[in-house]
């Protein structure tokens, strides 16, 4: 079976700004794949390229082997998208909205009605089926977006920050539901800002920054790439910070002294701590306490997407800096791409809707 998503050197330019920068990414069929990145990284642009809301400037993009432009009908038929924005038809009760969407995908009216009831029950808003979108609460709106994505029974479910701004209960409900869908065989592409979400749900994650892929790995592999911090409390503070840092071995990437506390960054705290203690004792320091903390996935994510310093990654692992070199850095624009992305996606339609603005039937 072809990959659910396969892009090669995908490029999207908005004038001088490059939102997708030669992005090559493969998501296997049946996979639960996470897309992480800061605002403006190009996540939504990438998704919208797949579903036909953004036209690529270059490269190739396929969904289950179907080119998103040449075979756009097959590609779009395979995708169910729950976007960030509330882009729902306000004219009709939500059940009819779902029936329309199913109909566009070639599902007969009777079956569409059945499916609409089914997915509304599944996301827990069946009793609101005759309400219009504007009358739903924020959480219900988010559930409806998921229901709309599911009503066509897609092979690829794309969730663009589905839990942004939702309460804990809903977040857990959504997690349970998408896990269930993935277990049933649906490929899931999830974008999120919540590292915990990616860590909990995803088989693999890609970290994006400024339109290019920083790295692709399992959450565990990513965590292995981080450094540990060994926090040592000394009985008496050292005279100068430089003395301590200079005298430690090469295993110590960085050492910081604050009062009687010494923080040392190392690749692997567990194996390095004895050596560190031994060296400190040789230098004449008395150890009062020691604590080792692992780098969280969130810290690794921040490090990898930080523009100026990616040197904290484990030196012997395939580093973020190495992977980043895939994309031409000369094309970057110091975050301006992000600005464009926000301008494109962050429109708030809700307050603008006003049926009275329809100036119809004058003659």
């Amino acid at each position, binding site marked *: 079976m072809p990959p659910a998503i396969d892009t090669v050197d995908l490029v999207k330019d908005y004038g001088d700004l490059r939102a997708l920068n030669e992005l090559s990414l493969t998501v296997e069929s049946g996979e639960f794949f996470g897309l992480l990145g800061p605002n403006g990284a190009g996540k939504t642009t990438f998704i*919208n390229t797949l579903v036909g809301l953004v036209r690529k400037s270059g490269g190739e993009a396929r969904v289950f082997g179907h080119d998103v432009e040449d075979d756009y009908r097959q590609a779009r038929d395979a995708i169910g998208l729950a976007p960030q924005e509330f882009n729902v038809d306000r004219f009709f009760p939500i059940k009819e909205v779902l029936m329309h969407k199913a109909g566009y995908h070639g599902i007969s009216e009777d079956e569409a009605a059945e499916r609409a009831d089914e997915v509304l029950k599944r996301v827990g808003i069946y009793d609101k089926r005759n309400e219009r979108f504007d009358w739903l609460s924020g959480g219900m709106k988010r559930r409806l977006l998921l229901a709309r994505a599911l009503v066509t029974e897609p092979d690829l479910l794309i969730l663009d920050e589905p839990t942004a701004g939702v309460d804990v209960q809903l977040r857990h409900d959504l997690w349970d539901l998408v896990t269930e869908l993935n277990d049933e065989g649906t490929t899931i592409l999830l974008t999120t800002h919540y590292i915990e979400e990616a860590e909990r749900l995803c088989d693999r994650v890609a970290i994006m920054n400024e339109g290019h892929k920083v790295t692709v790995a399992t959450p565990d592999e990513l965590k292995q790439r981080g450094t540990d911090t060994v926090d040592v409390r000394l009985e008496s503070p050292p005279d100068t910070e430089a003395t301590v840092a200079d005298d430690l071995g090469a295993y110590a990437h960085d050492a910081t002294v604050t009062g009687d506390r010494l923080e040392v960054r190392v690749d692997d705290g567990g194996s390095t701590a004895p050596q560190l203690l031994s060296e400190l004792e040789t230098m004449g320091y008395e150890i009062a306490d020691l604590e080792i903390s692992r780098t969280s996935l969130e810290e690794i994510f921040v490090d990898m997407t930080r523009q100026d310093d990616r040197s904290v990654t484990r030196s012997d692992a395939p580093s973020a800096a190495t992977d980043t070199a895939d994309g031409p850095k000369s094309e970057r624009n110091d975050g301006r791409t992000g600005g464009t992305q926000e301008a494109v996606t962050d429109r708030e*339609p809700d307050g603008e809707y006003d049926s009275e603005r*329809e100036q119809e039937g*004058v003659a």
Partner: protein
Amino acid sequence: MFSIGFRALFKREVLRFVRRPKNTFMPPAITNVLYFAVFGVILGGRIDEPVDGIGYILFLIPGLVVLGVISNAFENASFSIFHGRWNEYIHETLTSPLSYVEMVVAYVAASAVRGLIVGVIVAVIGALFVPVTVEHAVFLVVTMVVIAALFAGFGIIGGLIARDFDDLTVMNQFILRPLVFFGAVFYSLTMLEPIWQAVSLLNPMVYMVDSVRYGLLGHSDMFEVMPAAASEFAPLLSLGVLVVLTAGVLALDVYLFKIGYGLTD
């Protein structure tokens, strides 16, 4: 062409205006009652001589029918597209496996249906004021359908290029309506000086109003206004030009959808 997906979009578009008659059908009905009462009965009653041998109210009907058809077909298509863009729910259509031709034809057909319904409403209101007999029924129906499709097609373009709701108002009130009013709705071209007759022939609305008038009443100004060689075939010529123009506009609509003009980033 008439796939389940196409039918679903067409139905959605029709239901949108059918369920809102206070916004879609009532205003043109009321406005046209006023037109017939004021222009037809009160003012028209003071016009002693028939216009081209036709009573004034009867003369008015085809023009007002055309006005209703094109205004509503245009407004429906332009509003539906623009409102969908504004609130981004047109993404529901764009992310579906419908072909671009199916999308355009569904939007155009639904908008044309609304225009035709309003046209029939106007004709029925006119018939309440004066007896009407249809002279060339087939020609009339074909012409009305083509005109409705043409302006629905223009409405698609309007909905795609509009940046704000004000743009839709500008298109309808400042471009479409003046062209129709100077399209011989309320007067006959034969009443004009030759220079204004010639100028009027540059207005495409003239041919539409004249064609509908020919289909409904059997009268065409073109028999007298156009050069002798062409005048005999004037109604068919007008219809032929309209058909070609409509095909061109619909092809442009499909092209704009294909390149994502106003729809995709």
